[in-house]
Structure formats: C-alpha cells, structure tokens
C-alpha cells in the first residue's frame, strides 16, 4: 500500500467544488473535510454537518451576565451598604438596568467567542493544520482520506471531471507542521 494519506482536489471556483462534492458522494467516496478561503453557503447540508448550537450557548452566557450584574448590584447597593440618597429607595431597579444590559452583552460575547475558539480548537500559537497552503488564498480544496477510499484513480478522475485544477496526493496529513 502506498504512503498517500490524503487526496486533495483543488478547485478554482466554489461552484465547481460543490459539483465535485456531489460527484464524489454519488460514487460513494466519503469526504474528510473541505477547506475554503471564504464561507460557502449550503455546504453544511451537503456534508451533513449539523446546525451549530453556539446560539444556545450565547443565550446561556448572556443570561448569566444579566443575573451576575443584578446579583452584584443588589448585593452592593441593597444588602451590603445602603447609600442614603435623599431618602430614595436603595433598590432602584431602573438604575440597575444599564449595567445589567452591558454585562449581558459582555458575558454573551466573551462566552460565545471563547466557546467557539475551544470547539474549533483555535488558540494563540496553535500549529496550523493546513493541507494545502492555497486554501486560504484562491483554492477551494476537497480532502479525501486515501486510506478509507482506496480507488485513487477513480477519485482522481471524478475530481478532474468536476473541474479540479489540480489533484494532490499528500503523504503527510498536514504540510504546514514544522
């Protein structure tokens, strides 16, 4: 068996790449992943990727922020140290709203983005796991696992028929590792 790990179909056009995905799937070739320089709408459905649940996380983080802000203000201004301002009630809810709103946004934004970074393994200094350096520039790359799909010549043909400008055989999974 050869040392080829991944077969990459490198397309110059997103529509041709989508066509390539269809072709491969019709022929029972499973797709490992697709790397593109921009988001491709409709690709998730093709590849059977479920809807992201990040919005649920965002809501939970947001509501935590609201509660945290309320708890903080309530503790400081109502329980711990009441400031007598002209005899006005210390539990002045309308005055609490601006900070409750700001902390909702703050918690929601940071919680959601950090969840996103964690779930997609993005963090400063992470070694980029890139299969084709042009996938962030002008190429739309379909990666096929060469061990699972052994009919290499068929895959090659399908990709080229669909309009792939180049078909690469990578012996290393990621070419960008140092």
């Amino acid at each position: 068996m050869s040392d080829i790990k991944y077969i990459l179909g490198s397309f110059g056009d997103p529509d041709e790449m989508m066509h390539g995905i269809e072709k491969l799937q019709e022929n029972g070739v499973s797709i490992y992943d697709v790397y593109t320089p921009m988001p491709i709408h409709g690709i998730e459905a093709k590849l059977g990727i479920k809807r992201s649940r990040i919005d649920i996380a965002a809501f939970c983080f947001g509501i935590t922020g609201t509660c945290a802000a309320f708890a903080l203000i309530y503790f400081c201004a109502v329980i711990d140290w009441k400031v007598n301002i002209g005899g006005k009630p210390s539990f002045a809810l309308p005055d609490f709203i601006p900070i409750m709103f700001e902390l909702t946004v703050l918690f929601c934004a940071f919680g959601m983005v950090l969840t996103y970074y964690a779930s997609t393994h993005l963090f400063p200094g992470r070694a980029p796991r890139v299969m084709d350096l042009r996938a962030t520039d002008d190429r739309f790359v379909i990666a096929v696992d060469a061990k699972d799909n052994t009919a290499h010549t068929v895959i090659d043909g399908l990709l080229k028929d669909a309009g792939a400008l180049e078909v690469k055989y990578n012996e290393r999974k990621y070419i960008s590792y140092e």
Partner: protein
Amino acid sequence: MSGHNESILREPLITGDNITYAKITDDILMPVENKPNKAWWIGFIVSALGALLWVVAVSYTFWNGIGSWGLNKTVGWAWDITGFVWWVGIGHAGTLISAVLLLFRQNWRNSINRSAEAMTIFAVICAATYVVSHMGRPWLAYWVLPLPNQFGSLWVNFNSPLVWDMFAISTYFSVSLLFWYTGLLPDIATIRDRAVGTRRKIYSIFSFGWTGSVKTWQRFEAVSLILAGISTPLVLSVHTIVSMDFATSVIPGWHTTIFPPYFVAGAIFSGFAMVLTLLLVARKVLGLENYITMFHIESMNKIIILTGSIVGVAYLTEFFIAWYSGSEYEQYAFINRSTGPYWWSYWMMMTCNVISPQLLWFKKIRLSIKATWILSIVVNVGMWFERFVIIVTSLHRDYIPSSWAMFYPTWVDVSVFVGSIGLFFTLFLLFLRVLPSIAIAEVKLLLKSASEQAKMKQIKEGHENKEYVAEYVESLQKFDSVKQEDYAKI
C-alpha cells in the same frame, strides 16, 4: 451566494474586469507584504510626532495634576470631556458598519467594515485615555470598579451614569476588539500561508491555527451574526449612556430627554465622516479603487445626510423645548449658546453639522472625492464644536453672575487633543501595514454575485431586461474605476 445572480439593477460592489480570488488577495495584501512607500512614511512620521506630543502632554498632566488644564471653578469640564465624547462618537461608525449593516444584509459593508472596526478600536483607546487622565489621580483609576475595599466596603454608586459609563465603555471596547479579531482570523491565516520564515511564525501565532474547514466557517458565520446582534444594541446603549452623563444632571442645557437619540445620531454622523476621511486617502494610496468604489462613498454620504439632518432636527427641538418649558434658566442657557460670548462656537457647530452636510443632496458633490473629503473633515470639526457647545457653554454662566467665567485652554489642553489625533493616526497607519485593511474573505464572497464582471457576464448572456440594463449602465457612470468604453458597445 455563488450560482445565484444578483439583480442587474444593483450597482456592482467590486469593479474591474480581471478580478480573481487570487487578485483580491494580492491587491489587499499589497501594503502588508511590501515595504512602505514614501507617502506612508511621511504620514507615519507626522502622526508619530503627534503621538509623542500626546505622551508629553498626558505625562505632564499626570505629574502636575488637572491644574495644568485651563479649567476653573465654573467650567469644571471642558476639552477633556469634549475630546472623550468626540472620540467615542467617532468610534461608533465601525460598529454600525460591522454590526448594523450586517443585520440589514447590506453587502457593501464587506469592503469597509475591517478598517472601520479598526478605527473604532483606536478611537475608543483615545477616548479611554481622556477618561483616565481627567480623573486627576489616574493611579486610583481602579476606584471606578466595584472592588472590595478597606473603606467599610463602600461600593461605587450604581445610580451614577459615570459608573454605567465605565461598564459601557469597557464592554464596548472589549467586545469590539473581540469582534474585530475574530473576523481577522481567516485573513491572518491568508497572510501566514503566503509568508515565509519569521513572518510566517509570527502570523501563525496570531492566526490561532485557522484552517478554513467547513465547521470552522459554519460556526464563524453563526458567531459573527450573533455578535452583530448583540453589538447593535450595545453601540446604541454606549452613546445613550454617554449622553446620560449629561442628561441625568440638572444643569440647564444638559437636562434633556432628547439627548440619547440625538447623541447616537451624532455619533454615527461623525463616525461615518471619519471613515470617509480615512478611507478616501487609503483607497487612493493603497490602490483599492476596485473594492472601495464610488457606490460605497455615495452610500456613506447618504448616511451622513440622514444623520446630519437628525442632528439638525435635534438642535431645533432642543431650542423649542427650552422655550416651551417655560423655565427661565433653560431659556437663558439656549439664548446664551447662540448669542452669548461663545456664539461663534454655536454657529460653527450649526454651519458644519446642519448646513454644510446638506450640500450632499447634490449628486455632483456627493460623487466628488475632493468635496466629500473636505466635508467629512468639516463634519468632524462641527461635531467637536457640538460637544464643546454642550459642555462649556452650558457651564460657563451658572446661577450666580459673580461666578461667570470663560474657559481658556492651556498648551496642555491643546496638546492632549492634537496629540490624541496623532495617536489615532499612528495606530491606523500601523494597522494598514500589518493587517489587511479590507476583509479579504468577505470581499471574495461578493466576487461571483456582486462584481462588475459578474454583471457584465449576465448582460452578455442576454436574458436581462433591456431597460434594466440601460439603467445599470447609467448607474456605472459615477464610478471612477469603471472603464466606460466597455459599455459603449452594449
């Protein structure tokens, strides 16, 4: 997206006839991947000198205290708060472009959002330095935070708009930074994959290991949309709270319920003007005419007319309400604004903010780069005067005529302000060199649907309504980056 044609009636968002995905990357990364030219160096040196002046003036203030400014017993807030509100306002356009226009699916935002967001961040940095330096004892700046302390756990006053403001500005800054940086990841990865050696290593660290896989992009879009959704009310709340610093006080001229919407409109107004000031120059110097087109400039000018008119109506409403309130102090505050010793600043504000932006109703002026650039600066001068008028003119004649005073800025006041402009431009020029000034990935999205060449192809296929095509070709006349002769044949 791709595969679906856009209506031919819409103006193209990318012009030029040989644009490919690779060319978009090359064009936008040109300033990042090459040595700076002379124009950049001149701009940078001038701005850096300004930033140096800022360092000197702020250090002088820290060392000697607020007494080094021209404040007096009557006018206790002057250029510092004017500068603060001015900068925060300028910052608002970035969030507006990146968040509000995203929610409204205005695709023209894609080529201006990146630099507008960068501008937001730098403007908020300038604003924040004013907040810290006007505290008098900046080393105690942490006192604005609700921290446990040794003074019998006396907390900050949560009823005070100044405390709300601290929460608002710091949330605004950090969320804007997060939004901007997350959007930058794919573009940093593009630079990384094209670079070699140390450059690649550095960009690699900052790219967080971005690969552009399907799931990453899918979640990226979800995250961007939600961030836009929460940033939209955030940006409105920030300037609302800034205006409450004034509106919740009982000073005649400040105690006005119209302040929140009026400040927000003013903020968008000045922010768009600053975006134009920066981008008209950047477009020319960096050769980005195909991406930041006359359509973008015209659209921004239209927003300036709208928000400028809202601000104009707000000025008149304030006057009417002062009269209608029947409160003689309120009435005097406004008569004094327009005819008192600071009449010139009031009329400067009126001319720059209300009258001159109306010139943009004329198509010729709206489409002239020179006129637009000059007007964008005029707007920002006007907006600075607006804050000066609200702050200094409302304070300088208080209830006892014996304490009436004038405000005269010292060299420190002037230097902090001029220096903050230098700091802003220094940061912006550095940004242009190290990060892409246009969101590469987002512009690529438009190539197959909203570019001039895609529309040209649509016309050539011949399925389009002739009238619509004629209208489209006519709309192209305003573009300075379109070769008109290509359309003469059709």
